[in-house]
């Protein structure tokens, strides 16, 4: 395993499958009455959040606590950062306090990369989302959810070869899309992006995926459709004319979902904008995996933390108490 997790593009197929397999083990722990492992006992992890994100922060915190780590939550708002302290100074302060890993969310693309490579800090860095760049643990939890639903719970060692995945919406501003395209390609899936041309980045033709402007044409052959969040302010910036027009062309409703293969699933990284990008009928259907994705997010982050912080054996068997410990 690598030392940091900055980008989904950095993961080899074997790395990614190892994380997914470890996630499966972590998921089983969560089925137990006591959902806790001692794996990271005595380790201190700092959640360094320069950008608001309750969902991701809580998910990481839950993962860290289930691995028995000590957790420091650092939010930029109301902190020394709002008084002008730089990322470098903040990082060095945490280093001096002896943190063993840093989970960082930042509005600036590349901030986690700088943190990991500039010599400001020695601890492993885990990217919890940076600007419009990457959100690798989101991609991993999405891939895990897909593998469970489309391959099965006994899919240990397997990837997503041949699965057809469609990502719909604001690709331009989406770190989730970038991470997913990278990881799903590594795992052997065929990925198609569907968006209005204004919401696709220049150079997307060089990505390892197909691109379409026509959602209906792609749905027919999609094993999974992942709707991306569209921020309403994009409308004012002329990325598309009206909410209604966007919804008509790129929203997912029951009628459209019915075009998908029967086994096809609908995904969303959340939070969902109901009515615009996805109708309530679809969001609440059995085919929609949003709630599973949230649960799997904790398991995935447990796996990543475990592996990055030195876990080199199967997590659960490693965590199982020995006979001597039972005495």
């Amino acid at each position, binding site marked *: 395993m690598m030392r940091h997790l900055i980008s989904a593009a950095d993961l080899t197929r074997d790395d990614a499958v190892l994380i997914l397999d470890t996630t499966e083990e972590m998921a089983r722990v969560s089925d137990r009455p006591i959902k806790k492992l001692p794996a990271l006992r005595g380790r201190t992890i700092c959640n360094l959040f320069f950008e608001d994100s309750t969902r991701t922060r809580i998910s990481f915190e839950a993962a860290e606590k289930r691995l028995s780590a000590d957790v420091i939550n650092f939010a930029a708002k109301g902190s020394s950062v709002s008084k002008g302290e*730089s*990322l470098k100074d903040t990082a060095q302060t945490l280093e001096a306090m002896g943190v063993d890993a840093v989970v960082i969310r930042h*509005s600036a693309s590349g*901030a986690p*990369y*700088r943190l990991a*490579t500039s010599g400001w800090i020695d601890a492993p860095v885990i990217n919890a989302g940076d600007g*419009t760049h990457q959100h690798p643990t989101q991609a991993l939890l999405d891939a895990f959810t897909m593998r469970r639903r489309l391959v099965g719970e006994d899919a240990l060692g397997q990837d997503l070869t041949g699965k057809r995945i469609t990502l719909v919406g604001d690709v331009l501003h989406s770190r989730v899309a970038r991470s997913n395209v990278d990881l799903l390609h590594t795992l052997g899936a065929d990925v198609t992006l569907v968006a209005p041309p204004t919401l696709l980045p*220049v*150079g997307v033709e060089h990505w390892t995926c197909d691109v379409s402007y026509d959602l209906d044409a792609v749905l027919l052959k999609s094993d999974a459709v992942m709707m991306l969040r569209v921020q309403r302010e994009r409308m004012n910036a002329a990325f598309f004319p009206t909410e209604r027009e966007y919804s008509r062309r790129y929203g997912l409703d029951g009628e459209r979902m019915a075009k998908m293969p029967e086994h096809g699933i609908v995904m969303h990284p959340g939070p969902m904008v109901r009515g615009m990008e996805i109708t309530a009928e679809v969001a609440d259907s059995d085919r929609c995996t949003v709630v599973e994705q949230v649960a799997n997010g904790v398991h995935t982050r447990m796996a990543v933390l475990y592996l990055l912080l030195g876990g080199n054996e199967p997590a659960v068997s490693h965590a199982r108490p020995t006979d001597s410990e039972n005495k």
Partner: protein
Amino acid sequence: MSTILIRGAKVLGGDVQDVLIDGETIAAVGTGLDAGDATVVDAEGQILLPGLVDLHTHLREPGREDSETVLTGTRAAARGGYTSVFAMANTFPVADTAGVVEQVWRLGRESGYCDVQPIGAVTVGLEGKQLAELGAMHDSAAGVTVFSDDGKCVHDAVIMRRALEYVKAFGGVVAQHAQEPRLTEGAQMNEGVVSAELGLGGWPAVAEESIIARDVLLAEHVGSRVHICHLSTAGSVEIVRWAKSRGIDVTAEVTPHHLLLTDELVRSYNPVYKVNPPLRTEKDVMALREALADGTIDIVATDHAPHPHEDKDCEWAAAAMGMVGLETALSVVQHTMVETGLLDWAGVADRMAHKPAEIGRAQGHGRPVSAGEPANLTLVDPAYRGEVNPAGFASRSRNTPYEGRELPGRVTHTFLRGRATLVDGKLA
């Protein structure tokens, strides 16, 4: 007055000659000149150029003396072989009045290392709304001839038209920072494959090209001359080439870093590569080199943009844009233009001394190396190769993209009106 004999230099890279400096003037150029009691500079193997002229320097004084001062900036200029620099107007306060430009001009004179020609702002406060007192700045002791809102684009077409028309009264030129503001909102780097991958806001080529196209047409319409700062795209080159073929009075500059570096370097997220306009693609770099060689681009200008360490030692989005360039410019030009066979040393003198002096009306600079001319001269050792070490820079800031990179050439001596400002690579 002292006399100096520069012995055995290749003048503009051509014939080996001796050059005798008497006081502020070149007294003689020839072979086997008698040294008499002159101080002799042995220049065997070296190339003698007219003192370089930089039409685009940020000296930061007044207001950001933590980045650079007129003194430290002109010392850096002397190390780079420059005898004249044009100081951009985006200081604090902005150089938009006769008072501020005179202050900068006087600080330059007092420094003694390099002539400083202040550039006046086109609009009050660089806000693009109201013309600054262009005439008063021209009539001041500073004698401003170049006007620019550099750092910002004069994006209002009417204001740009008026500025172009107004400066005709005293032979001024407007130097445009071509950047359509709406197309570059949130821009962090060149828009393209790399920006899409890195998730950094894209600065599209068309944001530069559309303003250049507009401005050359405006210059043609009002019969004025316009200078385009730091061209960075192949498309910009094509527009300038077309404008020149049409007889429009346009000149253009390219920076050394746009002749060498590409946006692939941004993959490091190292803000030392963050600059405006951004580093572009290999195709753009090649087009810029060819355009400089064939004269479509008239000059090399450094866009020397000093920033203190803390403004670059941070995440990409928070970092300041710009690079220092005075002390490495000639080496980069030797590397990209001379060693590739695109320019000879006479061409370098043309693009880095003669033409910039001509565009900016820098009196006594960029003149031929011949008897009777002011002794503003630069001596270069082209055989030198070494790693760039910013620790030795005279600039107050060290934000160079070349740290650790091996580059050829070294300025050994610089003479400002006959007085050595740099001797054997050391500031006098």
